[in-house]
C-alpha cells in the first residue's frame, strides 16, 4: 500500500495522462465504428433475411451462415485469424485497421440478430394490413415496422455496445494501442499492476457506465410507454 502511494505522483504525470487518454480514444473509436457499421450493415442483413423472394434465397442462406459463424467464434480467435490473413495476403499491417474490420464483422452479426428479432416482435397482423393496402416490403418496414420496432431493438443494442467496449480489450493481443495495451505498457515500465490495471478498470467503467444507465433508463421508459 505504501508503495502504491509513493507511485501515484509519478504515475499520473501529464505524459501518462495523455497516453491513457489517447488509448481511451482508441477503445472508444473501435467500439463506435464497430457499432455504427454493425447497425447499418446488420440492419440490411435483417431486412434481407425477412424477404420472401426465391431469387434472394442464396442471399438469405449466406446471411444465416454468416451470423451463425461470427456469433460462434471467440473474438480473440477471429482477431488472430484476421491478423494472420492480413499478414499472408500482405494487404496492410495497420493493426487498428485489422481490429476495426474484425469488430465490424462481429458487430454486424450480433446487431443484425438484434434488429431481426426486433422486426419479428411486431405482430404479423401489421404486415397483413399494410400488404392488403398495397404497401411494398420496404414501405411496410419504413412506415409501420421500424417506427414500432426500435423500442424493442434499442435496449439490447445498448447492452451490446457495452459488451463491445469491453471486448475491444482483446485487441491488445495483436498490439492495438487501446486501454488494455496501454496498461500493459505502463506495467512493463515498472508501475505496479494494481495501479496500471486498476486505473484502466476505472477508465473502462467511465466509458461504459453512462451507456449502461442510459440503456436501462430507456428500457424502463419504453416498457412503461408500451403498457
Amino acid at each position, binding site marked *: 500500500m505504501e508503495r502504491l502511494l509513493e507511485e501515484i505522483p509519478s504515475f499520473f504525470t501529464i505524459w501518462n495522462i495523455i497516453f491513457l487518454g489517447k488509448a481511451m480514444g482508441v477503445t472508444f473509436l473501435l467500439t463506435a465504428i464497430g457499432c455504427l457499421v454493425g447497425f447499418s450493415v446488420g440492419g440490411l442483413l435483417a431486412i434481407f433475411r425477412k424477404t420472401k423472394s426465391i431469387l434472394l434465397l442464396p442471399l438469405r442462406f449466406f446471411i444465416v451462415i454468416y451470423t*451463425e*459463424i461470427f456469433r460462434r*467464434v471467440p473474438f*480473440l*480467435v477471429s482477431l488472430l485469424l484476421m491478423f494472420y490473413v492480413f499478414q499472408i495476403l500482405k494487404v496492410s499491417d495497420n493493426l487498428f485497421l485489422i481490429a476495426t474490420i474484425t469488430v465490424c464483422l462481429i458487430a454486424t452479426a450480433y446487431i443484425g440478430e438484434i434488429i431481426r428479432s426486433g422486426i419479428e416482435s411486431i405482430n404479423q397482423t401489421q404486415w397483413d394490413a399494410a400488404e392488403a393496402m398495397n404497401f411494398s416490403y420496404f414501405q411496410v418496414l419504413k412506415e409501420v415496422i421500424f417506427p414500432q420496432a426500435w423500442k424493442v431493438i434499442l435496449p439490447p443494442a445498448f447492452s451490446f455496445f457495452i459488451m463491445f*467496449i469491453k471486448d475491444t480489450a482483446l485487441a491488445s493481443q495483436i498490439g492495438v494501442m487501446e486501454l488494455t495495451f496501454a496498461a500493459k505498457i505502463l506495467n512493463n515500465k515498472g508501475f505496479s499492476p494494481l495501479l496500471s490495471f486498476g486505473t*484502466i478498470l476505472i477508465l473502462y467503467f467511465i466509458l*461504459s457506465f453512462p451507456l449502461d444507465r442510459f440503456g436501462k433508463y430507456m428500457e424502463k421508459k419504453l416498457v412503461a410507454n408500451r403498457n
Partner: protein
Amino acid sequence: MGYTLVYTQVLEFFPYLIRGALISLQIAILAFFGGMFFGLIFATIRTFGNKLMNNLVIWYVTFFTNTPQLVQIYFLFFALPEFGILLSPFVAVLVGMTLNAAAYLCEIQRAGFLSIRQNELDAAKTLNFTLTQQVKYVILPHIMKVLFPPLSNHYIIMTLGTSMAAIFGVEELTGRAFNINSETFRSVEIFSLTALVYIVITFIATFLLALIGRYFFKAKMRIIQ
C-alpha cells in the same frame, strides 16, 4: 500472395486440439455453475435483502458488467500477488470468469423471480397446495421456462469467453492453438481450424440445450436463430 493453405501439418495436431476443447468446456461449465450459485445468492439478496446488502450487490453487478473480463483477470493475476495471493493461471481465469458470470447470472435469475405471477400463486393456494407443492408445480416450472433460454445463451457466450484463458497460458483450445502456431507457423490454418472447433462445440451445446429446454421446460428455443 503466393501463399497456399496447407492443412496436413496442423491436422496432425487435431487430437491435441480437441483435448484442449475439453479443457475449455471444463472451464465454461465450472465457471457457469459457480456463477449460477453466487448469482442465485445475489439475486435472492436483490429480491428479499435489506437496503445495504441490496446496494452492495447492485454495485458488484454494475462494476463487473461495466469492465472487461480480460482486465479483471489481469488484475487478479498480476495485482493480487502484491498482497501475497498467488493464483495459478487456471485458477485466476476460473475465479475471474466466475465472478463475472455471477454478476450476469444474478440479473438473469432476478428477472426470473420477477416473472412469477401472483395470480398463479393465488390459484395454487386456493387449490390447497402446500409451499413445497407450490414451488414444485407452479414456481419452478414457470421460472425454468423463463430462465432456461437466457441462461443457455449466456452459457454459449461463456464458452466463447474461455478463449481468453490462453492469454494467461492456460492450455485450453485457443492456448493449444497458440502452441501449435509457434511450432508449425501455419497460423491461418490453425486459427481457422480452431474457429471451426468453436463453431462445432457451441453448435452442439446450442442443440443439446434447445432439446433439453423444449423437452423438460417447454421453453421456446431455436437451434438456428
